[in-house]
C-alpha cells in the first residue's frame, strides 16, 4: 500500500510549514531572496544583451546589401551607368540591382538623422553621390565582392560586413559572458540554497525526528524544505525579472530617441522571453539546491 500525501488537505500543511520556516528566519530569507535576486538580475541583463545583439545581427544580415560607388566619369552618363548595372546584375549571387540617385541618397540620410537633418542644409549642394544598391545572396558575399572589385569603373564598395563582424564579435562576447554568468549564477545559487536548506533542517531536527518516529515517509518530511528552496529562488527570480523589465524599459526609451535606426527586438517579447528563462532557471536551481541540501536530513 503506497502512502498518499499529495492530497488537497496537505497542500495547506506544506505551505504552512514553509511559511513557518520563513517566519522564523525572516532575516536570512530576505537576504537570500535579495542576493539571489541580484544574481539573477545580472543574468537577466546579460541574457537580454545577448538576445538583442543576436536579433540585430539577424536583421542586419537579412538586409545584407552592398553599395557600389562608380567613378565620377561614369556616374554622369546614363548609358554607362546602365551598362554597369547590367554587368553587376550578371554576377552570380546578385539578386537585385537598383540605382539610388543623389536626391534619394540625400533623403535617406535626412531620414536617418531625423531632427538633426538640419546640418544637411549647411551644404550648398547635395554632398551625396548616387550609387548602385544591390541585394545579394548572403552566402555569395565573398565572391560577389571579389568580382565587383575586378570591374572597371567601380570607385568604392561599401558593404556591411564590418558592421556585421563587429556585431558578431559583440554577440560572441556576450554569449561567452552569458555562459560564464549562467555557470556562476548556477553555482552560487546552489551553494546559497543548499546551505539555507541545511540550516533549516538543522533548526528542525527535532520535528524531523518526531515525524520519523510517527512513520512519516522521507518524501513527506523533505517536501517542505524543497518548497522552501523553491520559494527563495523564485522570489529572487521574480525580483530580478521585475528589475530587469524596468531596466529594459528604461534602456529602450533611451535608445529609441537618438538611435531610431537600430533594429531592436520588440520590447514585450524580449521581457517575456527573459522572464520565462530567468524564472524557469530560478525554479530549477531552487529545486536542485534543495535536493543538494536534503541529504543532511538523513544523518541524525
Amino acid at each position: 500500500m503506497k502512502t498518499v500525501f499529495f492530497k488537497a488537505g496537505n497542500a495547506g500543511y506544506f505551505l504552512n510549514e514553509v511559511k513557518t520556516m520563513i517566519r522564523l528566519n525572516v532575516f536570512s530569507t530576505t537576504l537570500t531572496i535579495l542576493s539571489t535576486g541580484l544574481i539573477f538580475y545580472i543574468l537577466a541583463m546579460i541574457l537580454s544583451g545577448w538576445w538583442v545583439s543576436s536579433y540585430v545581427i539577424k536583421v542586419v544580415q537579412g538586409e545584407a546589401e552592398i553599395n557600389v560607388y562608380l567613378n565620377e566619369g561614369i556616374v554622369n552618363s546614363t548609358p554607362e551607368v546602365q551598362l554597369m548595372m547590367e554587368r553587376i546584375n550578371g554576377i552570380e549571387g546578385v539578386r537585385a540591382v537598383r540605382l539610388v540617385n543623389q536626391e534619394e541618397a540625400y533623403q535617406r540620410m535626412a531620414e536617418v538623422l531625423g531632427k538633426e537633418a538640419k546640418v544637411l542644409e549647411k551644404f550648398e549642394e547635395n554632398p551625396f553621390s548616387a550609387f548602385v544598391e544591390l541585394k545579394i545572396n548572403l552566402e555569395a558575399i565573398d565572391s560577389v565582392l571579389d568580382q565587383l572589385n575586378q570591374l572597371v569603373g567601380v570607385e568604392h564598395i561599401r558593404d556591411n560586413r564590418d558592421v556585421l563582424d563587429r556585431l558578431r564579435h559583440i554577440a560572441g562576447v556576450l554569449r561567452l559572458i552569458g555562459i560564464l554568468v549562467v555557470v556562476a549564477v548556477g553555482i552560487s545559487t546552489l551553494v546559497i540554497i543548499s546551505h539555507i536548506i541545511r540550516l533549516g533542517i538543522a533548526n528542525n531536527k527535532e520535528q524531523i525526528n518526531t515525524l520519523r518516529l510517527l512513520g512519516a515517509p522521507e518524501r513527506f518530511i523533505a517536501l517542505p524544505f524543497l518548497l522552501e528552496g523553491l520559494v527563495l529562488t523564485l522570489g529572487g527570480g521574480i525580483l530580478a525579472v521585475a528589475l530587469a523589465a524596468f531596466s529594459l524599459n528604461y534602456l529602450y526609451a533611451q535608445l529609441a530617441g537618438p538611435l531610431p535606426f537600430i533594429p531592436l527586438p520588440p520590447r514585450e517579447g524580449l521581457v517575456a522571453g527573459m522572464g520565462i528563462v530567468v524564472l524557469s532557471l530560478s525554479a530549477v536551481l531552487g529545486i536542485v539546491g534543495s535536493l543538494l541540501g536534503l541529504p543532511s536530513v538523513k544523518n541524525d
Partner: protein
Amino acid sequence: MTMIEAKGVCLRFPNGTKALKDIDLFVKPGDMVYVTGPSGSGKTSLLKLFMGIEYPTSGSLKVLGQTMIQGQTAGIRRLRTIIGPVFQEFKLIDGRTVTENVMLGMRFLNLTQDQLMENAHHALQKVGLEHKAHSLVENLSWGESQRVAIARAVARKPVLILADEPTGNLDKANALNILELLTSFINDQTAVIITTHATHLIDAEKPCKVIRMDQGSLTWERLG
C-alpha cells in the same frame, strides 16, 4: 497477529551499558501491559526496541510481524504508522496548534481530509481537550501536553499503543484518568503497553499484565 514476540533480547549501548538483559516477552491482542520498575531499569529502552529506535544487540524481536533488525527501513517505517507512541517528553511540535499536532500524525496515512479532521476531533474530545484545539502547544500545562500526546497517538487508530511514563508528574486523580483513558482503547485487536514507576496506581480490579524491570532484567508480577 502477535503484537510482540521477544526471545532472549539484549540491548547494550555503544558505551557498554547493558540496558536490557535476556528479555522474553509475548504480548497478544487485547493485552494491557504495565511495565514497572525504578528509574534506569530499562523501561524506556524496551519501548525504543518496539519502535525500532534501537535494535536488539542479541536475541530476536518481532513487533506486529516485523522483524526488528537494522536495515529494515521500509518495514519499520510502515510499522511505526500503526503504532501510537506517547513519548516520555511528548515530542509535540512547538509553534503549531493542538489540532495541528494531532493531525500531523495522520497526514501521511491513507485518510481523507474529512477523516483526518474527524479523527482529530474525536481524539481531542476523548482526552477532554476540545476547548484547547486551537491553542499553541507551548502554552499548555504539563497535564494538557500529556493529553495532546495521547490524542496524537490514538487519533490515527493504532494497533499498538506504547506509552512511556504517561502518568509521570501528574497528581493521582489526573494520573488515574490518563490510565483509564489509555485502557479504554483496548479491544480484541489492539494492545496497550504502559511504562510507569507508580505501581500503586495500577487498578487491582481491572485485568492487566504487569512486568517488572530491574537493572535490565524482566520478571512477571501478574499474568492477567
